[in-house]
């Protein structure tokens, strides 16, 4: 411990109540107070900052700021048990857990050793299996484990590392030592949350973090990135991706966050494909070879061809590519076999056999019941032990033996005797306790049990341990279970420097400022952006049409024509009433259904949207629902909706990176607008009221062009000038010609930047429309009527051509039907 003399105070005596609610617990080690109840010296500077004259304000502001940043950054955690499957805001207490430099160094050494040990153990399990034949490892732990991947037997991973990211859960025992509770070897979660926590706490307690010279944690991420991108074959630009199970996974936020931090694209299984033992990412420009996959997908889901055939999340043929040494999996497939508490009891002997070393950080005492003497011990000491399942797929929640009585106890004993190898017993370790700010602005701190998750990364220069990590606190202050799924919270971990020199060296390591190369964006993402664009405009067009229709209720002739349009375009159902159709959520073409689709697409492209954008989408949907449920005037709901949609459009232009994805979003918006407008005008021209002023005026209103019409033409609304404005005007952004030209330009830019031959726009259809003599369409008589019909047909053809173009774009950029063949011919 630090020898630096420090004025320590007796907590209860001196402080004006801010430790009043902090109750020391004789069974636990206390992070803040020593055995005498004195504040440990290394906490003093932080406490001085947090508990000055305006302690109450500091706490309130700190908690508020933290909450706001969490919402703004969209930090969430999905809870599987939640019936709504809703995201829950991440729980973070801004008061960090402090670790002295030499405490951390002991953990660092221990973690690096364990990472080395577990790597060697995996090499043996998937290789010669010497430990099994020497009897140092029970076959039950390997062959009985659902994440022992049989098809991976004999594979030596390219680069030689099984573990690229390794994490250990540790807790401090009453004796002050840190013990390992569990090893995380498959796809450890939480490192991203740790980084996010630091980012937030840095803003909440900027002075404290600077004054205490807290070690930075970003260096580890730079090293990870460098390592992930080190597996290219000669002359190739290496590409790494993060493989995620998708937005419904509990830690999806983190996957997206890491993707941004590491500058590595986020991909779902369907974004990747294996051809000839090589993994490819489907991108807009075609298939791009993937060299490294940082996976957040569980072992047995990774390849439905050779593993669980019911997995829709994996990549068929992946193991073939791994076997052929064409791709690096981080972590290697099958590393999940080490995720069982049962291993802890065997690790000391394995360490001696494989490394000739003793474990420098011990594991909590563990008995695997598969051995007779262990079972006997466990049965006679149940009260002191926690019973856990050996295998992760067992339906068995850990239980404290002392909590079981009578029938429940008898049943547990029966289970243990029937399948002893399926159970593990661990000593019940009382977690240490640490201060958290009391909620709701109550003054001072409360004590809560804490465990930490620490991370090691295989970097280019060997194993690097993150000087920091994720501290997790229990939801219930009385129990020793920390679980994010069960509502526990988190904290940042501050590792204090032991010399000024080290602090300087650490602070020179910079955050990776990497960006995903825009041509590496998975095409599924862009497909959703494209549809997001289409649905925003579709909602807008339909809402406007509906509002215009409802507004025309007093004019019987216009109302009936407008209602007919609404029905023909599907905005309300065949027998539906436009004023009631917002409430009809069964109409698949209704506004409500389209808003739902829009929100769904947005959820699929969430990684590309800023937090405020995402919030705007959610607010819009909620507001519409509320307004409809409250039976407000539909016009109010529609006005509100149109306003939100306008805001979304604004965001799309000001707030997004203007890359190919964005360009396709814009093409989507334009195609949609053009298709809808051409269809509506075609219908109008084919109707018997085509030349009536009131109807023309209504159409201009429904198309949000009344004002511009008035400024452009002196005449009252008439068919000829209206068509002039809505079809061939080259400056009015709602005109068909304007849209068609803009689409052509976007497609050209896209083709140039992707290096492909562009798609034909709508060039052929436009001149026919713009060359037409519009004023002749206004006349009475059959000739004019025929001319109107002909114009209507041409508009219909344009609308159809827009649909065709959309299909071609989908095939080409999203499904890779033509590009697949090309990619394989080379």
């Amino acid at each position, binding site marked *: 411990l630090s020898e630096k003399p420090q004025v320590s105070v007796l907590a209860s005596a001196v402080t004006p109540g801010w430790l009043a609610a902090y109750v020391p617990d004789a069974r636990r080690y206390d992070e803040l107070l020593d055995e005498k109840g004195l504040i440990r010296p290394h906490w003093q500077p932080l406490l001085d900052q947090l508990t000055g004259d305006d302690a109450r304000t500091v706490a309130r502001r700190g908690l508020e700021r933290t909450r706001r940043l969490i919402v703004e950054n969209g930090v969430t955690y999905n809870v599987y048990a939640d019936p709504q499957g809703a995201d829950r805001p991440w729980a973070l207490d801004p008061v960090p857990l402090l670790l002295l430099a030499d405490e951390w160094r002991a953990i660092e050494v221990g973690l690096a050793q364990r990472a080395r040990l577990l790597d060697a153990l995996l090499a043996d399990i998937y290789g010669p299996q010497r430990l099994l034949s020497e009897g140092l490892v029970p076959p039950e732990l390997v062959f009985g484990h659902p994440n022992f991947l*049989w098809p991976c037997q004999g594979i030596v991973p390219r680069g030689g590392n099984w573990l690229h990211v390794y994490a250990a859960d540790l807790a401090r025992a009453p004796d002050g030592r840190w013990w390992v509770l569990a090893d995380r070897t498959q796809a450890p979660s939480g490192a991203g949350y740790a980084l996010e926590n630091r980012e937030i706490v840095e803003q909440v307690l900027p002075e404290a973090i600077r004054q205490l010279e807290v070690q930075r944690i970003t260096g580890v991420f730079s090293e990870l990135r460098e390592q992930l991108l080190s597996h290219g074959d000669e002359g190739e630009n290496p590409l790494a991706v993060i493989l995620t199970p998708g937005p419904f996974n509990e830690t999806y936020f983190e996957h997206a966050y890491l993707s941004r931090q590491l500058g590595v694209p986020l991909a779902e299984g369907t974004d990747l*494909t294996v051809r000839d033992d090589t993994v490819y990412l489907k991108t807009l420009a075609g298939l791009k070879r993937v060299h490294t996959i940082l996976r957040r997908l569980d072992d047995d889901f990774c390849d439905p061809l050779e593993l669980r055939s019911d997995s829709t999340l994996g990549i068929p043929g992946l193991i073939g590519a791994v076997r052929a040494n064409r791709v690096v999996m981080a972590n290697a497939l099958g590393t999940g076999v080490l995720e069982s508490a049962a291993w802890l009891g065997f690790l000391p002997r394995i360490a001696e056999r494989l490394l000739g070393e003793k474990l420098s950080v011990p594991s909590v005492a563990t008995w695997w019941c598969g051995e007779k003497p262990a079972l006997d011990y466990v049965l006679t000491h149940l009260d002191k032990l926690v019973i856990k399942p050996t295998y992760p797929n067992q339906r068995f929640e850990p239980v404290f033996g002392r909590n079981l009585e009578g029938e429940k106890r008898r049943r547990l004993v029966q289970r243990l005797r029937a399948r002893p190898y399926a159970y593990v017993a661990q000593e019940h370790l009382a977690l240490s306790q640490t201060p958290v700010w009391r909620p709701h602005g109550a003054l001072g701190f409360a004590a809560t049990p804490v465990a930490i998750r620490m991370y090691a990364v295989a970097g280019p220069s060997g194993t690097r341990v993150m000087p920091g990590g994720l501290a997790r606190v229990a939801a219930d202050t009385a129990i020793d279970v920390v679980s994010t799924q069960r509502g526990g919270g988190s904290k940042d971990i501050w590792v204090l420097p032991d010399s000024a020199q080290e602090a300087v060296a650490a602070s020179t390591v910079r955050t990776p400022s990497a960006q995903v190369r825009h041509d590496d964006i998975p095409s599924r993402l862009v497909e959703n952006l494209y549809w997001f664009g289409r649905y925003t405009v579709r909602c807008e067009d339909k809402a406007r049409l509906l509002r215009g229709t409802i507004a025309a209720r007093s004019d019987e002739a216009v109302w009936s024509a407008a209602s007919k349009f609404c029905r023909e375009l599907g905005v309300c159902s065949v027998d539906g009433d436009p004023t009631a159709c917002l409430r009809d959520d069964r109409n698949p073409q209704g506004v409500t259904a389209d808003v739902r689709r829009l929100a769904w697409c947005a959820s699929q492209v969430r990684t590309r949207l800023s937090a405020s954008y995402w919030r705007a989408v959610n607010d819009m949907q909620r507001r519409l629902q509320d307004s409809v449920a409250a039976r407000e005037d539909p016009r109010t709901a529609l006005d509100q909706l149109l306003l939100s949609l306008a805001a979304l459009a604004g965001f799309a232009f000001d707030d997004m990176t203007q890359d190919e994805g964005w360009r396709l979003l814009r093409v989507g918006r334009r195609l949609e607008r053009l298709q809808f407008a051409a269809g509506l005008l075609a219908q109008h021209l084919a109707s018997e009221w085509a030349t009536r002023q009131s109807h023309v005026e209504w159409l201009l209103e429904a198309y949000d062009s009344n004002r511009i019409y008035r400024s452009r033409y002196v005449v009252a609304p008439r068919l000829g000038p209206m068509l002039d404005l809505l079809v061939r005007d080259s400056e009015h952004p709602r005109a068909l010609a304007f849209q068609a030209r803009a689409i052509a330009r976007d497609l050209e830019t896209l083709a140039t930047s992707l290096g492909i031959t562009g798609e034909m726009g709508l060039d052929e259809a436009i001149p026919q429309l713009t060359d037409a003599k519009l004023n002749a369409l206004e006349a009475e008589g059959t000739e004019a009527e025929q001319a109107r019909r002909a114009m209507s047909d041409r508009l219909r053809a344009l609308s159809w051509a827009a649909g065709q173009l959309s299909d071609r774009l989908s095939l080409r950029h999203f499904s890779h039907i033509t590009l697949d063949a090309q990619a394989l011919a080379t």
Partner: protein
Amino acid sequence: MKGTVRYRIRHETAYEYRNDVVHSHQLLHLVPRPTAYQQCLEHVINVTPAFYRKRNEIDTFGNLVTRVEFDHPHRKLEVATDMEVEVHPRPAVNASDSLPWERTAAELAYRGSDPARDSLEAAKFRHESPYVRIKTLFNDYAAECFTRGRPILSCAQALMSKLHTDFRYAPGETTIATPLTEVLKNRRGVCQDFSHLMIACLRARGLAARYVSGYIRQIPASPDALVGWGASHAWVAIFTPPFGWLELDPTNDVFVGTDHVSVAWGRDFGDVSPLRGIILGGGSHRLSVGVKVEAIQ
């Protein structure tokens, strides 16, 4: 060798898809692996449509596996294997000479010392696997066969006969997705179900059992025709010290001899499925399978 039988076997599988399959990876377990009692003298696998790539490998259980990848749109996949296999008779064993079942289980369990080589191999086959969950239900069902101190082979034989008596062979009533608990409840199924169930009963007691896929001799005219021809067949191998692995066919209540040709073995059907593939596109499909087994000597 006296009693040796030579077979000519043809195994055809055809998938017809409603829509184009754009891309497809297939794993085939169709070539009989060599064993002490059989040799595959000749085999050829014909695949249509034209494949992009085909490769032969050996899987983790020592089976011969062929990987095929297709990259052109197709609506039909046909795989036909022709083979000639020679099968030799196996020495008779005396059930009462096998170890009591409890001792067999105890020897397979971890005891903190180095295991014998063959029990380590057997240890691979005494755990739950995707198609064989272990439940106390199976323990109870088989209890009468496992009386105290009974030699394991007698137990296994009794279990096989019990299954044969209790269950009805009912093709088409179960699929590979039918859970074993349901098979046990309904008492109907096919070779796959009976084999999985027998394996579950054995593993529930800590014994080692593996799933063997293969073919069975075809004697259509005979009144005591063995069940299971016309399709691929499956049975069970049991680790039986001191004899090693012995094979029993619960569908026919017989020991495996020269009427059976093994192709592959694993923990359960999933490890040795004749054709296992993942396709892109295709929509719904229709599957037809035909197996012809002729003794030619």
